[in-house]
C-alpha cells in the first residue's frame, strides 16, 4: 500500500546539547550494529541450564520504599477574575494506589471543573519511581485570596498530607503568562462513524521558546479509538495564535467508534528532552536543558460530530474502508495452472484517505476456488483452483465509502481470464474377452477433419412455432381449391350469371371506347360502339349472342321500360350504324345531342344486368 501523504524534510538545526546527545546515540547504535559482526567468528559459549538468565539485561528496580510525598499548586498562582487556572497535585505513587478524594476541599468562590489524572514512571538515580498527577481546571468568580487547605490522601493504606495551595485573584490581569496547555488540532471535526482522521497534540514552547517533549499522551473522551502505532512525533513550526512558532507535535490516527457529538481532549506530561520515540525536527528549535520536570497538562476539549454510515446503498464487499481509494489492475502470477496449483492474485490499492486502518477485501466463498487472503496489511490473495471448469478467477467484491459524496463506491476486483488444466482421461483402454484373451484395445476416434453434417439449431423443428405455422400452408391450399371447385360448380348450375358477368365486362369496355370516340368527335365510331354496347347489354336477356341482335331486338327488350326519347335514341343509333353500310349513307346524327341519351340508356341497361 502506498500513502499519498508525505512531509517535506528540513535540515535540523540542533542546539549544542542536542548535537552531543545525537552523537552519543549514533555511537551506541554503531556499537550495537557492529557487535554481532565482531562476535560472528566466535564459538558460541556452552551455557549451563538456566544460564541464559544471566545474559538478560538487569532492569532498574522500582522504588516503593521511599516515603511518598505530595505537592500542590495553582498554575498560575496569581490570576484575574474568569481566567483559566489549574489546580495540580502530584504524588510519588501509582495512580491506582492513591485514594483520591473527589472533589478535594474547595474554598468558596472557586469553581472546580472535572478531574484529569495520569501517571508516568520517572527515573530517579538508578531507580524508577511512579508519579501520579491530578489536575482540576479552576475558574475564580470573585477576587480575593483563596487557599485550598492541606488534606490527607490515603496511598496504599498510608495517609499522605497534601500541602495547602493558595491563589490570589485580582480584578485585572496579573501580567503573568497563562498556564501551559496542550492544544488539539483535528484534520476534520465532521466525520463518519469509523472514518479515521489525523489528530495533532501540540505543546507550545515554554519560557525562552524552549521546546519540551510530551510523554504519556492520552486522549480522553468516549467513542474514539486511538491508533498509537501510527504515532508520529516532530518539532516543527506551528501557527499559534497567528504566530508561527516551533512546537512539539504528536500526530496520531483517531477513529470514531460511536455516533453523535463526541468531546475529546488530550493530556500528557511535559518531559523535557525525554523523547520516547523517533521524531523529526523541522526548522529551528531550542530544546529545554536540564532534568525534565514532569507536569501533567491538559487541552481544551474539542467537539466532533460523528455521523453514522448510511445503510441504504451499501454495496457488497464493504469492509469499513472510508475515504477515496483506487485499485490498480489486479495481477495474476500465472495464467495457466493445473487443478490444485496455487496462483497469486496481487492487488494494489491507493488512497487519499487514511490507509493505516484500511481493511482489504475479504475472501469470498467459491465452489470452484479455494481463496486464501494474505494476512493484513497485505492485500493479495492465494487462489487454488479446485476444478478445471472455470475460465476466470472469481470476482472479489469490495467497496468503500466516500465521505465527500456520502455514497458507497464499488471497487470490486474483476475476474481475470485463466486457463485451468485438469487431469486428462485415458484415450485407450485394454480389453479382453470372456475367457481373458486380449482383444484389440478400445480407443477414442481421430478428430473429424471437417465439420460434417450441420444443423441450424439443436432445437428440433417439432418445438419451433414457425414450423407449426408452416403446416397451415397446405391447409390453406386445400381450402382454396375447395372454394374454387364450389364456385365452379355453382356457375355451371347458373350459366345466366356467367353471361351477365361477361356482358358487364364487355359493356364496360364498349363504354370506354364510346367515351373515347365522343371525346375525339368521331361520330361514326361513336354510333358503332353505341350499337354494339346496346346489343351487348340486352343479349343476356334473350339469351343470344350480341352480334346476332339488331335494333329491333333492342327495342323489343326495352319497350315498356324506356321513355320515348330512349326509343328514339335507339332508333337513331341503329339507323346511323346501319346507314354506314348503305350506298348513300344518310347524314350523320348530331353527336352532342345523341351522347346523353345513349349514356343514360346504357346506364339503365347495365343496372339490369
Amino acid at each position, binding site marked *: 500500500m502506498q500513502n499519498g501523504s508525505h512531509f517535506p524534510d528540513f535540515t535540523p538545526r540542533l542546539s549544542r546539547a542536542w548535537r552531543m546527545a545525537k552523537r552519543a546515540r549514533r555511537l551506541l547504535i554503531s556499537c550495537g550494529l557492529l557487535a554481532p559482526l565482531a562476535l560472528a567468528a566466535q564459538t558460541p559459549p556452552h551455557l549451563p541450564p538456566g544460564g541464559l538468565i544471566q545474559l538478560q539485561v538487569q532492569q532498574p528496580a522500582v522504588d516503593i520504599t521511599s516515603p511518598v510525598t505530595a505537592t500542590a499548586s495553582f498554575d498560575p498562582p496569581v490570576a484575574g477574575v474568569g481566567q483559566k487556572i489549574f489546580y495540580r497535585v502530584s504524588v510519588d505513587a501509582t495512580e491506582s494506589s492513591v485514594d483520591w478524594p473527589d472533589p478535594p476541599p474547595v474554598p468558596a468562590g472557586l469553581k472546580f471543573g472535572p478531574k484529569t489524572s495520569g501517571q508516568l514512571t520517572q527515573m530517579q538515580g538508578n531507580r524508577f519511581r511512579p508519579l501520579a498527577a491530578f489536575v482540576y481546571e479552576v475558574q475564580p468568580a470573585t477576587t480575593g485570596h483563596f487557599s485550598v487547605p492541606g488534606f490527607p490522601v490515603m496511598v496504599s493504606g498510608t495517609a499522605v498530607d497534601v500541602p495547602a495551595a493558595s491563589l490570589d485573584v485580582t480584578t485585572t490581569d496579573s501580567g503573568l503568562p497563562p498556564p501551559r496547555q496542550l492544544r488539539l488540532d483535528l484534520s476534520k471535526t465532521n466525520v463518519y462513524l469509523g472514518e479515521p482522521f489525523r489528530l495533532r497534540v501540540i505543546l507550545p514552547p515554554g519560557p525562552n521558546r524552549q521546546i519540551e517533549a510530551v510523554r504519556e499522551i492520552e486522549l480522553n473522551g468516549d467513542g474514539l479509538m486511538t491508533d498509537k502505532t501510527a504515532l508520529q512525533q516532530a518539532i516543527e513550526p506551528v501557527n499559534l495564535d497567528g504566530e508561527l512558532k516551533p512546537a512539539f507535535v504528536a500526530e496520531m490516527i483517531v477513529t470514531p467508534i460511536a455516533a453523535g457529538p463526541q468531546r475529546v481532549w488530550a493530556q500528557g506530561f511535559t518531559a523535557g528532552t525525554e523523547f520516547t520515540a523517533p521524531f523529526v525536527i523541522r526548522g529551528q528549535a531550542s530544546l529545554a536543558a536540564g532534568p525534565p520536570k514532569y507536569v501533567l497538562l491538559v487541552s481544551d476539549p474539542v467537539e466532533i460530530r460523528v455521523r453514522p454510515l448510511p445503510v441504504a446503498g451499501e454495496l457488497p464487499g464493504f469492509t469499513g474502508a472510508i475515504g477515496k481509494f483506487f485499485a490498480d489492475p489486479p495481477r495474476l502470477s500465472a495464467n495457466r495452472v493445473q487443478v490444485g496449483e496455487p496462483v497469486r492474485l496481487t492487488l494494489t490499492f491507493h488512497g487519499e484517505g487514511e490507509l493505516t486502518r484500511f481493511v482489504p477485501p475479504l475472501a469470498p466463498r467459491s465452489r470452484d476456488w479455494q481463496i486464501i487472503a494474505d494476512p493484513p496489511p497485505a492485500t493479495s490473495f492465494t487462489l487454488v483452483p479446485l*476444478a*478445471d*471448469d472455470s*475460465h476466470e478467477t472469481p470476482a472479489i467484491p469490495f467497496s468503500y465509502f466516500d465521505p465527500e459524496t456520502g455514497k458507497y463506491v464499488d471497487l470490486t476486483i474483476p475476474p481475470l481470464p485463466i*486457463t*485451468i*488444466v*485438469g*487431469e*486428462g*482421461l*485415458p*484415450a485407450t*483402454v485394454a480389453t479382453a474377452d470372456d475367457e481373458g484373451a486380449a482383444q484389440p484395445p*478400445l*480407443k*477414442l*476416434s*481421430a*478428430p*473429424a*477433419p*471437417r*465439420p*460434417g*453434417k*450441420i*444443423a*441450424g*439449431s*439443436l*432445437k*428440433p*423443428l*417439432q*418445438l419451433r412455432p414457425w*414450423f407449426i405455422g408452416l*403446416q397451415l400452408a*397446405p391447409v390453406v391450399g*386445400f381450402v382454396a*381449391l*375447395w372454394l*374454387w*371447385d364450389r364456385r365452379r360448380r355453382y356457375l355451371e348450375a347458373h350459366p345466366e350469371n356467367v353471361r351477365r358477368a361477361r356482358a358487364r365486362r364487355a359493356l364496360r369496355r364498349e363504354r370506354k371506347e364510346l367515351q373515347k370516340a365522343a371525346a375525339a368527335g368521331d361520330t361514326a365510331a361513336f354510333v358503332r360502339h353505341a350499337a354494339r354496347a346496346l346489343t351487348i347489354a340486352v343479349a343476356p336477356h334473350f339469351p343470344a349472342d350480341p352480334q346476332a341482335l339488331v335494333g329491333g331486338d333492342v327495342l323489343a327488350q326495352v319497350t315498356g321500360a324506356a321513355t320515348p326519347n330512349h326509343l328514339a335514341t335507339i332508333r337513331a343509333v341503329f339507323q346511323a350504324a346501319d346507314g354506314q353500310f348503305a350506298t348513300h349513307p344518310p347524314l350523320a346524327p348530331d353527336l352532342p345531342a345523341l351522347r346523353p341519351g345513349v349514356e343514360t340508356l346504357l346506364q339503365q341497361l347495365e343496372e339490369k344486368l
Partner: protein
Amino acid sequence: MNSFCLRLKFRHWLGAGLAIATVLAGLISGRAAANDAFARGLEFSRAGEFPEAAAAFRESANAQPAAGTLVNLGLAEWQCGHAGPAILAWEQARWIDPYEQRAAANLNFARQVAQVDAPSLKWYEAVSTWLPPNAWVWLAGLALWLAVGLLVLPGIFRRPRAGWHRLLAALAFGIFLFSLTANSGVVSRTQIGFVVKKNAALRLTPTREGEVITAVAAGEPARRLRTRGNYVFVRTLGGAGWLERDEFGLICPR
C-alpha cells in the same frame, strides 16, 4: 405509364434481391466464422492444447452446430478430463447425425471408461433415433398432405380415383401415423440430458442447503422433469432429485 411500371417492377426485384443477398451474406459469414473456429480448434488439438481447442470447437458449435465439430469438441473435453461435457457433445453429434460413427464409438468408449450408462429410451424414442429429428417432422408433414391430396385432389380436378391413388394414400397415412410416434419420441428425447460436473450433488430440495441424496457421476444420463429457479428436477437411473442448472446439460438446450 409503361416505363413507370417497369421502374416499379425493377425496384421490387431489386429490393427482393437485396433482402435475399443480405440473408445469404449472414448465413455465409456465420458459416465462415464457424469454419475458422473449427480450423483453430484442430490446430490446438494437434498442438495438445486441449482447453483452447475445446473453447474453439465450442465457439464453432455455437455458431453452427455440426456433427464433426461436436465430435471434436467431445474429444477435446475428454482430453481435458471432462467426461460429462464430452459425452454430452457426442450425444449432440448423434442427435444431428444418427449415423455419425465416430460419436457412437467414442460414446461406447467413454461409457466403458467412466462406468456410466447410456440413457434408457422408450420404444418410440428408440425409433426416433433412426432418422435425424427434423427428418421425422418433414416426413410426417409430407405423408399427411400426400394422403390428403391423393384423396381430395382427384375429385377437385374431376379425375377418376384410381386404385393406386387409394393405395398410395393408405401408405402415406400409415407413414404419417408411424412418424407421429417417432416425433413424439423426438420431443420426449429433448428432456434427456447428462450430468456435466464431477460428483454433482443430487439434492432433496432445490436449495443450496438441501439434503444431498447422492452424488451423480459426470456423464450420467438423466431426464429433466421440471425446473425451479436455478435448479432442475431430474430422474436418473439411481433416483430423482434436484441438480443445479450448470451441473446438467440437455442434448437439446432450450
